[in-house]
């Protein structure tokens, strides 16, 4: 579904992705973690070419991203993306946030698009907010709308870039529930997150990155119990220490 082969990326002199080789299979839930600045966000952003790659090959859903003839907009329509900062359109109501892309790109009739949007809104538990504006919603609600917006294009892959990092602690749970539900439905997902509970519960595989390199790739039970790489051990210790205080 997603195949990275020898992918490199530089921001000027900074080598942000260094020889990435990774294969995501259909229906797989992959969690990417690592310290900040490790390149994990850049990695996920290359998958729908929000960041173009400099070297290597990247094939997403059968489309080759290093080929100039590939229609990037078509690829992006097949890949949903959820951002840390939600990025809902503040000038559009919730329902219009969700239906914009299906109406403009898939030429779905407005009525049908709205019906589908209502199904999605019900799924994320926000059916009653259809006419609200994004800034009237809490962070957790906004992120759930953002997920519904991503799903509205019926994507084959969903990408999540730290979807809970900008949320107040009491709102993280509601967003994770929606994501877990999605994972169980068989969606192919790549999730950059520090939510280790989520990783443990629904991820099929965890990838640990640092300095633009994939240092470890393992099923969650192995990764959490027996991290091989020293930096991964250190990273997990730092994540888990504050929790032990409770």
């Amino acid at each position, binding site marked *: 579904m997603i195949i990275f082969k020898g992918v490199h990326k530089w921001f000027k002199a900074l080598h942000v992705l260094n020889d990435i080789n990774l294969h995501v299979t259909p229906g797989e839930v992959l969690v990417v973690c690592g310290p900040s600045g490790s390149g994990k966000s850049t990695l996920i952003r290359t998958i729908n070419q929000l960041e173009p790659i400099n070297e290597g090959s990247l094939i997403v859903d059968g489309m080759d991203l290093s080929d100039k003839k590939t229609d990037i907009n078509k690829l*992006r329509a097949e890949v949903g993306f959820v951002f840390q900062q939600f990025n809902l*359109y503040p000038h559009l109501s919730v329902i219009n946030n969700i239906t914009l892309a299906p109406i403009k790109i898939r030429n779905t009739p407005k009525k049908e698009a709205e019906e589908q949007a209502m199904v999605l809104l019900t799924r994320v538990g926000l059916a009653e907010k259809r006419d609200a504006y994004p800034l009237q919603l809490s962070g957790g609600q906004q992120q759930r709308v953002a997920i519904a917006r991503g799903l509205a294009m019926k994507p084959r892959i969903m990408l999540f870039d730290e979807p809970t990092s900008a949320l107040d602690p009491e709102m993280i749970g509601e967003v994770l529930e929606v994501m877990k539900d999605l994972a169980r439905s068989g969606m192919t997902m790549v999730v950059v997150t520090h939510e280790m509970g989520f990783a443990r519960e629904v991820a099929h595989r965890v990838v640990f990155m640092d300095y633009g390199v994939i240092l470890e790739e393992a099923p969650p039970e192995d990764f959490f119990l027996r991290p091989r790489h020293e930096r991964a051990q250190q990273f997990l210790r730092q994540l888990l220490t504050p929790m032990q205080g409770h």
Partner: protein
Amino acid sequence: MEQLFNISVITDNFTYFMIGRFPHGPLGGVGLTLYLAVASCILSFIGGLILGLLSVSRFPAVRYPALAFINLVRGMPLLMVIFWMYFLLPALFGKIPENNTVILALSLFTSAYMSRIIVAGIDGIPKGQTEAATSTGLKSWQVMYYIILPQALRNMIPSFVNQFVSLIKDTSLAFIVGVSELTHVATQINNRTMAFPTEIFAFIAIIYFILCFAFTTLSRWLEQRLSWSKAI
């Protein structure tokens, strides 16, 4: 003893101040001032939008001419642009009514400034909006049209208002090429009556103020109406 402030010069010529010789002759006075301002306002908005979008184009062949034009116009006094249009256009295209040359001059001049406001407005929209919209598969013109511009234009309203208030006042320069807008009408009446310059020019100052103030008030109302962030 001479009256200190003779209001009769205003009341006697009131219709002339307001609409010139209209409907028996061409529109003049406040009517023409408003016509010049509104027409230039609409044209310069369109012109500014086009220039602004061209000046942030990905293609250098489009971007550089647009930037060159903007900088050229911004480096000229408005009066110069008015003269240019007044003498150049008829030489190129034959007879063109003075009103139109003035509207064109005001529009060109104001579009250059408007384009910078529009670019700043576009730049002011967070990058995440573009990313979110492109990531759903919208083409770049669709992102601009459905997502960026509606937000940017709303944020630009205060700057637009500044520009249009300047525009209303700038129409007074049209008197130099004989267009009978408010200032021109005032000088005519002043030349004819000779004795009341204070009354006449105080009166048109008040008129200009009322026009500008009305516009500012209207825009404030519009800004509140279009607000989505205050809906909370």
